[in-house]
């Protein structure tokens, strides 16, 4: 299988006052075509920084990030901050197409068909994000990412802020969309069970390093690292 992203020996640090705090320590990974790759770790392990490095929001101090496709799109954790509160959903979905100079009529058609795909009604396109539930907002985020035809999606804790029943729906939606379109998803989560249910491969991160990597079933059944074992034991 071809890789669509390679991260090679990346280190990154934040300035904390005068001291430099290393957040990523020599991270290497690849994301393959047509897979959901899980990235699991506890708070402060550097998983969010890693996604920022991949997206170019944070410059790595060492190493390189190689993209083999268009820039990835992102689905954020907090559905309340990831959509512009002053814009209508339809406008938000159209914006990337506007940037690609798609003519107005085609934009409208594509927005409607994409909305259908993610389970949003036409009437919701005329609402503002504040008038939608958390789950609906996350559907809008997913639609915004997919409408651009990106083949690679980074999802940073996309279901953590949702109620379980809604969480389930969004997980099913993401799996279904992935299987239909064959895109790749880097799925970041602190929840091992969510990772288990969604991902083909898993990376376990701790203190800015990759602790363990493997096929999902293999890793959950025969964890090698002590840390993974501890995580699995603590998870309900």
């Amino acid at each position, binding site marked *: 299988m071809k890789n669509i992203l390679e991260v090679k020996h990346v280190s990154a640090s934040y300035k904390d006052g005068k001291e430099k705090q290393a957040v990523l320590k020599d991270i290497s990974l690849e994301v393959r075509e047509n897979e959901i790759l899980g990235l699991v770790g506890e708070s402060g392990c550097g998983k969010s920084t890693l996604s920022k490095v991949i997206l170019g929001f944070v410059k790595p101090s060492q190493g390189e990030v190689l993209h083999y496709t268009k820039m990835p799109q992102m689905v954020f954790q907090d559905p309340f901050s990831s959509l512009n509160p002053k814009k209508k959903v339809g406008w938000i979905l159209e914006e990337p197409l506007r940037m690609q100079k798609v003519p107005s009529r085609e934009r409208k058609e594509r927005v409607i068909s994409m909305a259908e795909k993610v389970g949003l009604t036409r009437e919701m396109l005329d609402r503002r994000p504040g008038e939608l539930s958390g789950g609906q907002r996350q559907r809008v985020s997913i639609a915004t990412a997919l409408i651009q035809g990106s083949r690679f999606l980074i999802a940073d804790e996309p279901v953590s802020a949702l109620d*379980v029943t809604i*969480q*389930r729906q969004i997980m099913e939606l993401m*799996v279904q969309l992935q299987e239909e379109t064959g895109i790749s998803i880097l799925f970041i989560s602190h929840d091992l069970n969510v990772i288990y249910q969604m991902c083909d491969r898993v990376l376990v991160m701790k203190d800015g390093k990759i602790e363990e990597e493997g096929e999902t*079933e293999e890793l959950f059944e025969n964890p090698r690292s002590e840390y993974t074992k501890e995580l699995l*034991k603590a998870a*309900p």
Partner: protein
Amino acid sequence: MLLEVKNLNIEFYDTDPPEKAVKGISFSMEQGEILGIVGESGSGKTQTALSILQLLKSNSGISSGEILFKGKNLAGLSGRELQKIRGKEISMIFQEPMTSLNPVLTVGRQVEEGLKLHGEGFSKEQRKAKALDALGEAGLPDPEGIYGKYPHQLSGGMRQRVMIAAALVTEPELLIADEPTTALDVTVQAQILELLKEINAKHGTSILFISHDLAVIRKLCGRVLVMNQGVVVEEGEVSRVFDHPQKDYTKKLLAAIPDRRRSLRKRRRSQ
């Protein structure tokens, strides 16, 4: 009977007409019991918990019903009468250990606060000794060292332990815990749940545990109320409710919990 809630109704007043957050729920708690209330957002579980000590925000209130704590109706008490019960006989811990501690006071001061308000003439030394005991009991290593520290010098898990110490220093009979582990990492969450169990076993402190997380409820509680849209959908022993749910809503909720038994991936399932 330690706590008995009868036909409790809670309304939000800032909408027209008033929106009912809790619609006539009733439940009771025995001494020494750990009772869980589980529900999704909008279920009314947090409103229920807050109403017991009249901590509801000003845009909402109890419109009818009784909250009997050892036979006394808390819903009818004045602020001053309630103050004697708050933090003394009933304590509460919250989700955010960051915001529920005062950032400019030392841990020691905050743990002792309850004793100052309710302490029957404890001397300064006695208060400190009790606070150190409570910190130790909350599983904090080196209570002496932590006593003089400020909240921002502690990790999230340690702050939640400080909260627990502050809540338990007055030896309350009932501890209300509103999503106390939600903001914590799984490994820390597991430790805090263990700690609550220990406290319950050792002192017989009753715990009313509010959570959206069914797995956490299952680990900790003896009995559970499942709430949805302001009503109690199902109630019973945790093992019964989880293994043989009677109501559709409970079934749906249980089916939605991510577990490690079945993957959502067709590709992996077919392997």
